[in-house]
Each structure stands twice: as C-alpha cells, then as structure tokens.
C-alpha cells in the first residue's frame, strides 16, 4: 500500500488535533506516514502520539538547523521525502503556514494543490476533495490531475480515529538550501492559553460583536457554560476588545462548528464568510431587522446583557 505523508502540526512537540484528523483521512487513501519536523528530544513522544492514531511510519526530521526559518525549509523537507517515498498523497493542515508550505511544495513537485478541503474521500482511483467557497454559498468537489495530490485540509474535516499503526520511526536527514534560510522568526510570543477550546477546532463557538459594547463577560459566561470557544466580529477586534486571533470572518478564522452563537453581531457578509457553514446557528440581537437573523435556526430579539446571563444561569441550573 502506498504511503500517505501527513505533516504533523505541533507546538514544540505538543501534537495538535488536526494531525489526528489528517491521519484518519490518510488511512482512507493508503498507509499513513507522519512527518515530524521538530526538536529531536520531542520525537519519541510525538511518535507515540501519532502511532496511537494510526501512523505506520514516523519520519523524524530534526529541526535544529532550520527552526524559526518559516515555510521554505519545510517545503524542501517534504519535497525530498516525497521524492524518496513516492506517496499517494501529501496531507498538510490548512493553517496559514500549512497552506504556504503546500503552495511552495506544489511548484517544487509540479503537483496539483487543493487547499481548505473540508472532506477528502476515495472514489475508485480518485482522491476527491470537497471545498466550501464563496462564503460557504457553494460546495465544490475537485481532484488533483497532475503529480502527487497535495491537499491542505481544514480542521474538523474528519474525526480522529484511535487505533495503533505500526509506528516505525525513521530519521530523515534533509539537506536544506541556504536560500531557504533567509526569512526568520526573530521574536515570538506564544498565545496565552485561555483554557477554552481552539476557535477553529471547537464544536461550539460563542461570539460577540460591537453589541457587547466592549464587555465580553456575558459572552464568555455562556461560552464556558457550553464548553465553547470565544469568537469576535471585526468590529470588536478593531475596537481593541479582543485580539485579532479571535476574529471570525473573511479576514479572520473560518469556523464550521456544530453550534455558532452570534451575540450583538449584525451579520455582515464578511462575518458570514467565516461562520455560515456552521451546523446550527443561533443569534441574540436587539435589532429584529439585523441580517444575522436570516441565517439562524433560532434567534432571540433582545439585549445580550440580560439574555446571556439569564441563559447561562438556566444552563447551569439544568446541568445541576
């Protein structure tokens, strides 16, 4: 069975959930080979983690020489691995970085690239991807017709599947060109842990907009009662109430959770672009004419500062 390369998404050796989703997809196509580019001291723990979710092989690429050098060296690593392993496909997390690695790799390998896949299925000999385009108004099925399919997959495209793979660890020494080591991270401030789920990975997202007036207490209270991630509209971000990483929309994160709760958000097209593929949509807005109500499964016309705390208290009560 052909190998399927899966680029491991991790922060200093802590494997992120999209990696497991990619491994589940890789199993549909062939034999999953995880590619870990990171610190050698973390490789054993990473290998154990990805093996538990089905990796048959784990390529370990020590990043001592390339750490901090952005995407170009990683694209070179994957190119060299692809030339060695002739994989059936290469799966990369569709993060900002992942997409750029994929873009460079596509040119290097003269291979077709599909980004932002929300599903990947095998149909006979074809690997068919599904993408959601134009603010979620259309669904597109596509496939790669040249070279090795390179697919950047969005979070939540598949459920992680536990089940051990062979997990054979193989060290891979890539040779990185000097040209790839020219743009560099000079300072990095890790995101402060919020104790809440990741916005793009969460099953429930509770967002606040300009209607919060800058006070997110009610929004965060409901989020915590539901075990949800917190999001924000651009108006809330531009006002400095939340950092840009909270922004949902065309120029922020695109989320597709089971439940999206929009509070004090009017529903501008750029905001919709980031949330309208959510399974269930709920809104609280004091203006019954707000366009967000066109999208909702359930809406409350009312003041979020009274509706949300009351709803939060009611949820806590029912949970007992």
């Amino acid at each position: 069975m052909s190998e399927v390369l899966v680029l491991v998404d991790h922060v200093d050796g802590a494997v992120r959930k999209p990696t497991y989703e990619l491994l589940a997809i890789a199993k549909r196509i062939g034999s999953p080979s995880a590619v870990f580019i990171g610190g050698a001291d973390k490789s054993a723990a990473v290998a154990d983690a990805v093996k538990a979710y089905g990796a048959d092989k784990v390529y370990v690429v020590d990043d001592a020489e390339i750490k901090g050098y952005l995407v170009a060296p990683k694209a070179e690593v994957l190119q060299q691995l692809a030339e060695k392993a002739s994989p059936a496909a290469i799966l990369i997390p569709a993060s900002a970085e992942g997409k750029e690695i994929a873009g460079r790799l596509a040119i290097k390998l003269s291979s077709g690239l599909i980004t932002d896949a929300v599903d990947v299925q095998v149909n006979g000999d074809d690997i068919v991807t599904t993408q959601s385009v134009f603010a979620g108004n259309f669904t597109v099925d596509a496939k790669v017709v040249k070279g090795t399919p390179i697919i950047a997959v969005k979070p939540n495209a598949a459920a992680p599947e536990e089940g051990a793979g062979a997990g054979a660890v193989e060290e891979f020494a890539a040779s990185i060109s000097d040209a790839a080591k020219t743009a560099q991270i000079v300072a990095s401030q890790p995101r402060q842990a919020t104790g809440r789920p990741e916005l793009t990975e969460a099953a429930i997202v509770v967002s606040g907009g300009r209607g919060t007036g800058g006070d997110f207490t009610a929004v965060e209270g409901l989020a915590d009662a539901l075990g949800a991630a917190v999001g924000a509209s651009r108006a809330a971000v531009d006002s400095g109430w939340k950092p840009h990483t909270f922004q949902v929309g065309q120029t922020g994160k695109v989320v597709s959770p089971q439940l999206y709760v929009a509070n004090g958000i009017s529903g501008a097209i750029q905001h919709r672009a980031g949330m309208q593929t959510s399974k269930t949509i709920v809104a609280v807005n004091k203006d019954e004419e707000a366009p967000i109500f066109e999208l909702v499964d359930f809406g409350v016309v009312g003041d979020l500062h009274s509706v949300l705390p009351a709803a939060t208290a009611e949820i806590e009560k029912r949970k007992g």
Partner: protein
Amino acid sequence: MTLSNIVVLVKYVPDATGDRKFEADNTVDRVGVDGLLSELDEYAVEQALQIKEKRADEEITVTALTVGPAEAEAAVRKALQMGADKAVHVQDDAIAGSDAVATSLVLAKAIEKIGVPELVVGGLASTDGGLSVVPAMLAERLGLPQVTLAAVVETQGDQVRIKRDGDTATEVVGGTLPLVLSVTDQSGEARYPSFKGIMAAKKKPLDTFSLADLGVDASEVGLGAAWTTVENVTARPPRTAGEIVKDEDGSGATALVDFLASKKFI
C-alpha cells in the same frame, strides 16, 4: 541595498456584495458580474505607497501588476489613482480559468520581464477563490524568501520586519531584500484616490502584455492546463427559516436554553 522598485500584485475580482456565480465549465464567472480591485489588495497598494513615502530619499517606482481579463484594467487603474507610478496588465484569452499554479507562473514571468524588483507586495487572499497561496508560489518561482500575512510592516535599508498573528503565537518575522511580502487588512486603512490622483493616473504608463510577450506558452495556462479539476459545484441549499422569539421579561433566555437542550447541546 537601496530600494528602487516595488511591484504590487492586484487582482480584479467579482464584487462580493453582488451575485457571484460559476460558469457552465465550473470556472468563476468573471465577465457577467461587476468587478473591482480586490479590497484586500488595496491594503497591499497602501503599504507599498507608505514604504515609498517613508523612504523619500530613494527613487522608488511602484508598479501595479494584474493578471486578468480586459476588465481587470480597472484594478490597476485604481492602484494608479491611489498613487502607484506604473501599471502592467497581463491579458490573454488563454489565461481564463487558470488556477493558482498557472497564475503564479504568469505573475513570475511578468515580473521577470519588468525586472525583478527588490520588493513584491501582495494581499492576504483573493476575495474570490481566496487561497492565500499565490505569494508563496510566486516566491518559490522567483527563488525569493517570503514574509507573509503582515499586520505591521517596517523596512530599513535592506531589512524588512513584520508583525503577524500566527496560529499559535504573535511573531516578529525578519527578512532581507529582495523578498515577497503579503499584508493583511490589519496593516492600516487604504487611502481613497484623491481628485488629483484620479487626474494624474490618466497620464501614467500602463503596459498590456500577452502571453507571447512574456514567452509563456498558452498550453501552460488556462483551464486545460490546471493541475486540479473541479468535478462538481453545488449551491448550498438555502437555510430553512429559523424560529425567532422576542425577549420579554426573561422569556428569551428560557426559550434559548430550551432550543439548545432540544438539539442536545446541553
């Protein structure tokens, strides 16, 4: 290194507030709908102009470059009105339906023809197909480093420093010219063309190139040459109208929680 040339990549896109459609061959309909300079590329033009203005002691030429149909001239015209010095429009019927791979090829060849500048600036993403991959592909083709998704841009001599919100950290990224830069809508409001700018733009040079001018074979671009193919396009079924209640004396909260419970979210 002194900075003498900046190329800014601008794309002509269907208006997002209009009705965006697909053609029978599953390509984006770029002709039958109103289009404009992609909003997100206005930020790229703005940053290019700001860099030029801040480095007033250097002779910097800002060239706006677009690849697209005849109507796409509107995109470079707008960039000229904002203050770009020159424009290049690559137009050829064979380009229609090109994917990001082919687009990056045409952009790279056009840039080589203009003369590879010290700095290429692009936007965050096309507001239509929006993959955010063209700048990375272009950097790969030109053999240049990329410094992308900048929320804040600073340049000094041959050094470029940007700040960006990464997925897991806020980062400062540094690179040395020549390089490819892309900027987000956090980088600062784009200026409106002034009346003076609009008048001045009429006299600025605008070159139109065909594929033959760039030495690109028509078989390398367009729908037929795409490395990916679209099998199917389905319009999302319209959402069925939901239930909307008015909050009166706390009734809204109870109704909301009942709804969430009925969907098993609690």
